[in-house]
Structures are given as structure tokens and as C-alpha cells.
């Protein structure tokens, strides 16, 4: 792969090219799923290719190919240059890159148990055991469980002289129980929706999740939801579990801080951001107890946004996004950082594979743990609604107004769960919501969740992002409006 990268880089270094980088990537995947006592699917795949990015005449050109012959690499490099030249036909200003050092590195993400070394029958045995446990409850009409393993090795080379070889292993696991009764569909998922939990780990993640132990509770809750009361509509104190809070961070903090979005690059598709440049260091984004970082370093945890270098060769960093409630930072790239007077990218450029050009993407955007105990989070109010596990999510294209639905809710009175509530939902305006944050549980309740399905860019790229959070409480939030008619 190193030889391919250097060959392609050589081909891309043509007259008129002021900068070039290449990424050779091999992706190996395995996916195993069960459904109602049977194999749902078993599949594996391998994909190998190269993406070549050149900066010429002040414009970007990118071409990707799976033809890795010398001729194929030369054709792709020439195509990237031709595309860059075409960009001059609609050109406003030359791209200027923030300086960066040259790096030579080999990095392999920690993986205690190689998931690809596990046998498929071992995988199926576990999933079918979970499936049996779920369907032991007669009210469960559809039981589904899945495991996914992914290993990406990428060699990055650039005309700065960088040569970076990274291998990342990601594991995902989870299950769900769906209950259909009298035309009503209710569902519970473990440990999260979207297929469960995903982390930069090996098979040890599957073992840590202890899925079999949780199956009876999940089945019971899915069935019980049919008899639960509808979540009331009105303003309530709201407590969110850490997985739902992770998605709340993703949508109402993670996307708005993407500097390319702020500057208009996504205006036609993903949208823009309410975090205009005049808000930096001025906006009171949240309450004083709200501290958010964007952190791709391994020290932050095994997140889907953890790596050693981003896809333009910038080392992983931690950036304060919200400090003491104040908005303090964007996610940047080598191209966008100078546009706001910053001297260096904070390393968030990522591509979803060899075939796509890197964009600013969330790494691990996390709410730092608070100082309260879980008892204080739940008991610090007489009456609240507690919600767990995302069911629906939607936010406007500038990231102000959101609405989320969850799989299950509970009414909390004096710190104790009372009645179960079905179809819970809440809505609000991003900054009002974060300013209403009243309590955040401590580090012992903090989980780094993986969101595997974040879409952005044209052509669309689907990226895995990380979001750490502890359960937290928010004052006087609009609840139940999704069913308000």
C-alpha cells in the first residue's frame, strides 16, 4: 500500500500542482444478523482503492479509482488535475492551506480481541441466544440482533512529505425487540438504536455489552409499552439517558460547529449553521456547567471519531467547543482555519472511504461529565420526565429548532420512577435547551457512544462519530409536541 501511495503521489505531482495528497485504503467488513430465530444475513466484503487530491491553479481536484495499475494511477492523477483546472471556470479565490508539519507514523488502534478471528458460528450462537431470550416473551413479535466488524487500513502520503499508515478496527453490536399488538408498534433496543453500540474496539466490546443479560428487560419493556400511558404534552423538567443525550449533542452542537457549514459549503444540502463567526467567544451556548470538547485523541476514549491523524495528515487534537457554557471553538480544516484567522487546522477532515474527498466531520464531540450523582440528577426536582433511547430525530438546516422522540419514558416523582410513558418526545431551540441544563451526572455514568450513520456532503458520505455523555437534567422543556397534532 505504501508503494501504491508513493507511486500515485508521484503521478499527481505535475506542473501547476501546489499540493497533493493520496489515500490508499483497504476496508474489510463482516456483518452477521439474526431475525426471529433464523439467520438474517451473513456477509463480508473487501474494498481497496485510492483517492488522489490535488490543489492546482488555486482549485481542488479529486479523483478516486480502484484501478491500481501504474496506468490506472496515472489516469486518476491526470483526471484530478483536469478537474482542478476546470474549477477555474467558476473561481472566486485561491485555496490557501494552513501550514502543517511532515509526519511519518504507523498507528494501529487498540483491539484486545480481533473480531475477525472469531468464528461466524460463534457470532451466530450469541445472536441466536439473545434472540431466544427475547422471544421467550410471547409479546415480542420481531426479535433482531446483529454484529458488525470493520477494519480499515489507510496509507496517507502528501507532498509535505508525510507518510502515515493507520489501521482502525471498529465493532458494533446490539439487538431490538418489536412488539405488534392491535395495530400498534412498540420497540425497544439495546444498548442503543441504530444497531446498538459502536466503538473503536475489537470483540471485547461485544463481551462488555453482556447482551444476553439485558434481553429479558428489553423484551418486557417493549411489550409493556402497549399498556403504558401516552407521554403528556406540556413543559416539564426533562432527564435524558446518555445515549439520547449523545444524539442531542450530535445534532445541536456537533453539526453547527462544522466550519465548512458555517462558511456556506453545505448550503445546498446539509444546510448552514446558527453559529455565525460573530458568535465565537461571545455566545452563551449553554449553562455554566456545560463543557463540550471535540477530541479525536485516544485519551478521550475508543470512539468512532478516534484516530492518530485526520485525512489530510493533521494530528488528532482536543478542542474546547463550549467552556463554562461559552462557545469557544469550531471544527476546522487546513483550508478553513486561515479563513477565521487561525494558524492551524484542528484536525477534523475525514472521508468515508477511498472514493470520497475528506470533509470536516465530527470526531468525538462530547459533553464532559458533571459533578452530580445520578441521585442528584433524578432527585433534584419534584417532577420530571425521563427518556431513553432515540426513536426519531430532526432539526432544521441551521440547527436551531429540533425535535426528538424516544423509545420509552418514565414519569419521575421525587427522584423515583413512577409510571411508564409511551411515545415520548421533546423539542426546543438548541441554545435555549443547553442553557436549561441543570445537572449532569459524573464520570462513572459517562459513556462514549458511536453514531454510525452521520450523513453529510455531496456525494453523500456516511461517517461514524463519537459522543460522550452522562445522563443530564434540563429545566422546563417542551415535551410531547410530536403527538400534539
Amino acid at each position, binding site marked *: 500500500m505504501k508503494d501504491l501511495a508513493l507511486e500515485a503521489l508521484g503521478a499527481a505531482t505535475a506542473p501547476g500542482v501546489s499540493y497533493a495528497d493520496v489515500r490508499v485504503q483497504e476496508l474489510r467488513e463482516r456483518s452477521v444478523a439474526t431475525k426471529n430465530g433464523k439467520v438474517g444475513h*451473513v456477509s463480508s*466484503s*473487501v474494498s481497496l482503492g485510492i483517492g488522489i487530491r490535488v490543489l492546482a491553479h488555486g482549485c481542488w481536484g479529486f*479523483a478516486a479509482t480502484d484501478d491500481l495499475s501504474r496506468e490506472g494511477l496515472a489516469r486518476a492523477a491526470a483526471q484530478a488535475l483536469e478537474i482542478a483546472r476546470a474549477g477555474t471556470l*467558476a473561481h472566486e*479565490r485561491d485555496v490557501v492551506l494552513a501550514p502543517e508539519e511532515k509526519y511519518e507514523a504507523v498507528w494501529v488502534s487498540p483491539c484486545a480481541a480481533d473480531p475477525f478471528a472469531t468464528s461466524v458460528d460463534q457470532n451466530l450462537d450469541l445472536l441466536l441466544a439473545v434472540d431466544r431470550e427475547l422471544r421467550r416473551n410471547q409479546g415480542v413479535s420481531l426479535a433482531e440482533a446483529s454484529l458488525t466488524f470493520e477494519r480499515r487500513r489507510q496509507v496517507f502520503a502528501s507532498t509535505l512529505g508525510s507518510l502515515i499508515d493507520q489501521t482502525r478496527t471498529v465493532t458494533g453490536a446490539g439487538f431490538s425487540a418489536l412488539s405488534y399488538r392491535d*395495530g400498534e408498534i412498540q420497540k425497544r433496543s439495546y444498548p442503543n438504536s441504530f444497531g446498538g453500540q459502536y466503538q473503536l474496539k475489537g470483540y471485547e466490546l461485544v463481551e462488555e455489552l453482556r447482551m444476553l443479560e439485558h434481553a429479558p428487560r428489553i423484551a418486557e419493556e417493549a411489550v409493556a409499552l402497549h399498556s403504558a400511558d401516552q407521554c403528556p404534552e406540556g413543559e416539564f423538567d426533562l432527564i435524558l439517558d446518555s445515549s439520547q443525550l449523545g444524539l442531542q449533542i450530535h445534532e445541536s452542537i456537533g453539526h453547527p460547529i462544522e466550519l465548512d457549514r458555517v462558511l456556506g459549503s453545505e448550503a445546498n444540502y446539509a444546510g448552514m449553521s446558527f453559529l455565525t463567526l460573530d458568535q465565537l467567544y461571545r455566545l452563551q451556548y449553554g449553562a455554566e456547567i456545560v463543557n463540550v470538547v471535540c477530541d479525536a485523541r485516544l485519551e478521550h476514549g475508543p470512539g468512532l471519531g478516534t484516530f492518530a491523524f485526520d485525512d489530510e495528515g493533521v494530528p488528532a487534537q482536543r478542542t474546547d467547543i463550549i467552556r463554562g457554557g461559552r462557545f469557544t471553538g469550531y471544527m476546522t480544516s487546513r483550508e478553513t482555519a486561515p479563513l477565521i484567522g487561525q494558524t492551524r487546522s484542528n484536525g477534523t477532515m475525514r472521508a468515508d472511504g477511498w472514493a470520497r474527498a475528506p470533509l470536516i466531520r465530527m470526531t468525538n464531540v462530547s459533553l464532559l461529565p458533571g459533578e452530580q450523582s445520578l441521585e442528584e440528577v433524578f432527585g433534584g426536582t419534584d417532577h420530571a420526565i425521563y427518556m431513553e433511547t432515540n426513536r426519531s430525530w430532526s432539526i432544521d438546516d441551521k440547527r436551531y429548532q429540533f425535535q426528538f*422522540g424516544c423509545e420509552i419514558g418514565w414519569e419521575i416523582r421525587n427522584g423515583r420512577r413512577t409510571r411508564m410513558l409511551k411515545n415520548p418526545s421533546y423539542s426546543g431551540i438548541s441554545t435555549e435547551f443547553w442553557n436549561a441544563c441543570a445537572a449532569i451526572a459524573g464520570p462513572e455514568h459517562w459513556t462514549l457512544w458511536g453514531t454510525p450513520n452521520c450523513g453529510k456532503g455531496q456525494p453523500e458520505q456516511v461517517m461514524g462519530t463519537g459522543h460522550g455523555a452522562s445522563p443530564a437534567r434540563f429545566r422546563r422543556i417542551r415535551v410531547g*409536541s410530536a403527538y400534539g397534532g
Partner: protein
Amino acid sequence: MDTNHCEEIFELAARHARAQGVPDVEALIGWHTSALTRFANNAIHQNVAERTGWLSLRVLWEGRTARAGTNRLDGESIRRAVEEAIALARVQEPDADLPPLAEPAALTPVERHFADTAAVTPQERARAVADAIAEVRAAGQTAAGIYSTSDSLTAVLNSRGVDARHAETMAQFSVTAMARDSSGWAKATACHHRGLDPVALARTAAGKAAASAAPLELPPGRYTAILEPAAVLDLAGQMFGDFSATAIRDGRSFLAERIGRKVFGENIRILDDVYHALQAGAPFDSEGVPRRKLSLVENGVVREVAYSRQAARLAGVSPTGHGFPVPNEYGEAPMNPVIEGGSTSLEEMIRSTARGILVTRVWYVREVDPSEKILTGMTRDGTFLIEDGRIARGVRNFRFNVSLLEMLSSVEALSPAVRSSGEEAFDMVAPAMKVSAFPFAAVTRF
């Protein structure tokens, strides 16, 4: 890759499988090139191209099946894919419900490949983009958007003799025009790039941005809504996964107890028709079964749903040619919806409305409730107040929570159906709709 190459790849895979005692092999083989010129702030800022081929191979014997894929199409990589698929299948318990491979069936070809669209150059795309930017800039606004072209070949071959191949080109142009406090959007897709008019799309987007300047904040509530075709398809498109025999069997579909019942208004008729002149896509499914035209909804009554071969076998009916690659948990879905239109133009809908909201497009549409098919989402890039039969001014964008059962039972008028494209569902043929008492739940800040 040409079609002969597909045959070589399949023969090689089948030979390796036979050598290991597995006679039944199915191959999805594809090749794809695409290029996309992206612009924002009145300039091209991302400009990309990609090409790849792939083989997705399935083996099947004694009720066991598994799939292995690779984009490496040399002999050694194909051999490894065959061995991997066999290894994945070998450990499974036999499934008596798994059908054998499909048998060959006559296909009705559709002509959707145009050599000159496949040959569009970066310079041609850039010139079209520059013209569109000039149109928006002339209105004192800022343009963002894309122009893409692609060329693809898809083939399904199996050891029973299925040999289904489809080549298609696709061009796509979308543009957002941004003014100081408003925006407008337009988009079109076509198999031939001459079917797109980038300057006309830019003019439409700029016109919407100008007309929606200084948006008024209206209170949320129920309003008559006129939904342009892109908004209709991005809402209605959320329900076609429910027109699936497997989803109904699993209790995942809102139609589970509604087949044969009138669930929408009398004026709602929906087909799935890959052969429609305004549609795109291959006339066969992932097992090579010819797609059948389905009458999904007739005068508000749900009539037909899609059946993969496995779902059809379980139900004792014929497959409809809508199956996903086997093995999978979701079965099948209609992929080429045609929502039949009416005779009321968009202008007539506006003229006949005393007070209502005109919606250009919707955004971030998600399912709130699977049983009643309640969807939430936002309006975007051109939302207008209609008063006394004319567009009065722009309004701030709304969040809605609407049940499709209610929405499609409240359609007062339909425009002629056109090929439409949004961002929340796949392209389809759809009309504009005038909907009474559409529930807008909240309003945002812009």
C-alpha cells in the same frame, strides 16, 4: 467494464464454487463512474470523480446461503470471495424457507443509457455551473449547488441461467440561492443531461429567494398547505418501505391491518412502475426477477404490495421483482413509485387558496410513529404565505408533525405528475398537492 466482462467474472466465480462442490451461485456485478462539481459562495469548491467495479457473490446449498463482496476483480480476489461466501454459509443451520436460485425470465429492457451523458467533461459541468451562478448573482444573491453525471452498469447472473443487465446514465443539478434573510431551491434529475436546464433551475431558486425576503413569523397551527412535488415525494417517500410483504409479516408496517381498506382519499392513486417514461432504474430486482408494475393504491384503497421471492414463497403468491440482495432482513420494497397527478396547476391551487402556506421542499423528515405513520420535518428554502389567491410573502420555516394517513386523506387538488427529486427520499414521479388543515407544530428562527 463491458457486459462481456460480467460474463467472465461470473464464469470464474461459478467455476471456483463448483470446484468446491457448490453448484448454485448468484453474482451481482456492477461498474460505476461518477463525477460531481460542487459550488458554494458563487464558486466551485469541491470537484470530484470516482470509479469502481464490484462483485457481490452469493452461494446457496441445502438451505444455507451467504454473500461475500469485493471490488478486486482479478482471478485470485474472485476465488477468495467464493471461498469466503462458502465458509460463511457452511456454519449455518439449513433454512427450509430459503428459495432456490431464480430461474431465467423474459425481461423488458428500458433504454436509460446515453453515451454523451457518460462523456460529459469537467469543463462542461463547470461552464454550466458558471452560467447558473451568473443567474443567481445577477439577482444579488449567492449560489450553492451541484452538477453531477454518472454512468453505471448493473448485472445479475446466476448458475440457473439468469442473465439480467442494465446500463444507465444519470445527471443531477440542484441549486440553492441565498439572499440576506431568505433562500430558494430547485433541483432536477434526468437520465440524459440535456434533460436538465441549469440556468432555468437557478432562475427558479433565485426567484424564490427574492420572493421570500424578510420572512414573517406566523404562529404554528393548521393551514391549507400547497406542497410542491419535491415536498410531496420527500413525505410520501417515507411510506414505501411499508408496502412490503416482509414488513407486513414482521409487524413493522403501518399497513399490517390495512390492506384492502380505504386509508387515503378517493383521489390518491399510486403505482410502482419502473417502465414509466419518467422513471429510472433497472427493470429487474437483486435476484434478476423482472419488476412487475404494481397498483399500490387505487382510489385510496391499498391494493398491492411488493413480494421478494422468499416473501412470495411464504405467502404462496408470485414474486413481483422488488427483492433486495439475499440474504437480508427487510425483503423488498417498491422502488419506482408513480403518484398519479390531477389537472390542477400549481398556479390554480394558489389562486383558489384564501389563506395557506406554499412549501417548496421539506428537510430532515423522520418517522415519529410507525403505527400511524406520523412524520416530522421542517420546511426549507422557500416557504410562503398565500393570501387571497396569491403569494403574499415569505414566512419563517415550520416544523410539522403529520400523519400520512391524514395528509393523503385531505388532498383537495393535484397537479399533473412530473419527475421529481428531493433529498429525503429517492426520485419518483409525483404531483404537487393542495392539502387542507396541514398541521404545522412549531416555527424556527429563520
